[in-house]
């Protein structure tokens, strides 16, 4: 009995502490985002005297010729295309790497590990992209995100594929399936759980990516949401309400992901540990 009381007491303390540390910053973002410019510039943690939710949304979207809208479109394209690439290419590579043995196995292990650890070499990458004519283009950045995210995808896929029984392949082959049909019609559907994990984890990563667009996609025309936010910081120095509205708007997609896929995200980031 005493123990139970102590536990709930501890729980209350934990709730209060985490609320102060982790939730108040988000409440601060929200209240500042809906204030008027004068009130927001005081940077105080107070309830807004008037709530200008819609006005501020419209104003921040219209700012600089609908820059934020362009950025959302670009970020969406970037995220969808690069994550699709990582899923398909990563699954294909992991499939063959896992099923085939031999000397290539260790090489691939090594290469995949390098991709996880090595920081990309910035200027040489720009140089290569420029030679290929894909520097400063959205499709160039998509390829970059695929290249940098592939290792992680391959790793998750391999871990999962090793649990898929080989008998399944053999049955399909006996039915006369070729490699493409085997992979895309038989195996790919089986990978659904890990595919969801890869999609969720990597789309959050790509959507929030700042460094790669900063280096490989300079200029306003192709801005992504993170770049626009960064630039708004110097631009909206006196309009904190709009700056925080911008933060609020770009927090919504990860929030939706979190609500829908909470379990897969956690599983994806920790999952293989249990194996």
């Amino acid at each position: 009995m005493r123990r139970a009381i102590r536990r709930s007491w501890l729980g209350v303390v934990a709730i209060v502490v985490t609320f102060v540390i982790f939730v108040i910053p988000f409440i601060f973002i929200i209240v500042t985002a809906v204030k008027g410019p004068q009130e927001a510039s005081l940077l105080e943690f107070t309830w807004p005297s008037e709530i200008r939710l819609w006005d501020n949304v419209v104003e921040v979207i219209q700012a600089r010729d609908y820059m934020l809208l362009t950025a959302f479109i670009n970020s969406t394209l970037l995220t969808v295309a690069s994550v699709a690439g990582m899923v398909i290419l990563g699954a294909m590579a992991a499939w063959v790497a896992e099923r085939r043995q031999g000397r290539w196995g260790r090489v691939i292990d090594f290469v995949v590990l390098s991709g996880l650890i090595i920081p990309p070499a910035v200027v040489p990458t720009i140089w290569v992209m420029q030679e290929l004519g894909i520097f400063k283009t959205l499709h160039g950045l998509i390829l970059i995100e695929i290249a940098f995210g592939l290792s992680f995808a391959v790793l998750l896929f391999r871990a999962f594929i090793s649990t898929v029984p080989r008998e399944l392949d053999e049955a399909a082959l006996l039915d006369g399936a070729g490699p493409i049909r085997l992979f895309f019609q038989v195996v790919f559907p089986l990978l659904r759980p890990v595919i969801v994990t890869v999609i969720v984890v990597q789309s959050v990563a790509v959507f929030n990516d700042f460094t790669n667009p900063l280096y490989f996609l300079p200029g306003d025309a192709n801005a992504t949401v993170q770049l626009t936010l960064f630039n708004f910081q110097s631009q909206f120095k006196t309009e904190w309400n709009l700056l925080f509205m911008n933060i609020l708007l770009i927090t919504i997609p990860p929030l939706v992901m979190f609500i829908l896929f909470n379990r897969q995200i956690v599983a994806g980031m920790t999952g293989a540990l249990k194996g």
Partner: protein
Amino acid sequence: MATARIRANTPAASRRSHSARRRVHSAYPYWFFIAPALIYAVLFLVPTFASFYFSLTRWTLFTSTFIGFANFVQFFREPNLVQGLVNTFVYAAVTSGLKVVIGMALGVLLTSRIIARGWLRSVVFFPVLVSTIGVGITFSVLMHPTEGLINQVLALVGIQGPYWLTDPTLALISVALVDVWKGVGLATVIYVAGIVSIPQEYFEASRVDGAGPWTTFVNIILPLARPATVTVIILSLIGGLRSFDLIWAMTRGGPGFTSDVIASVIYKQYQAGFYGLSTAGNVILFLLVTAIILPLTWVLNRKVTH
């Protein structure tokens, strides 16, 4: 990331049936590798190898002049660049240390029979998914020396809060604290997964022995959650050594050069058009990360198997 790599390293992952290998080989064609290998090689491996050459040059993207190790000499001669190197260590050590300690504490808390576990886990984890730039901007406002919420609250209880981001001795640590705020949720869920996977018998045996919570923690959780600790350390070291976004959004390496790290030095040299020097910074970062992570992984993982 590293969670999965540990998995891939275990012998179980590479233990396979070798029967009927030849017959089904054609079912796993090598050409499946072509597209991913091409993208990966051209955009990741080629630049990585090229960086070793270009770090030895003075480079304008169009022409490069070979200058030997002059860039590296420059790097270690300029006190501000050396400080960036030192700061990188400090930042990585502080963030991964705190993530281990706080993450483990929260992990234990969240696996105990406490109320509102789901809420606590969600609240702690959500910042992991939020834009780093957004977090950086928000906290640079909250940490404003006079108008920021943090110091205003401290003032209410009679404490004169520090100049978090503008005090040269504190700026780097302040950013590191925000990094911990944002990243500790991941450490926590890794610990939760690690602690949950400890077989219940251990806890029962411990209870039978009449051990208190502290003894249980020291004797059971600490040693058996070691894989989680290894993962958290390696993960946050990789992140901490390469860290750029948060520092750039909050201090841009300032005041002066006091919160510069290698990644921000690389960016500044790139901005200034010193492409060779920037690439030398990249090579240094590469060597540093490899020199720390590889042996560490080996040591930590080897002890696990004992």
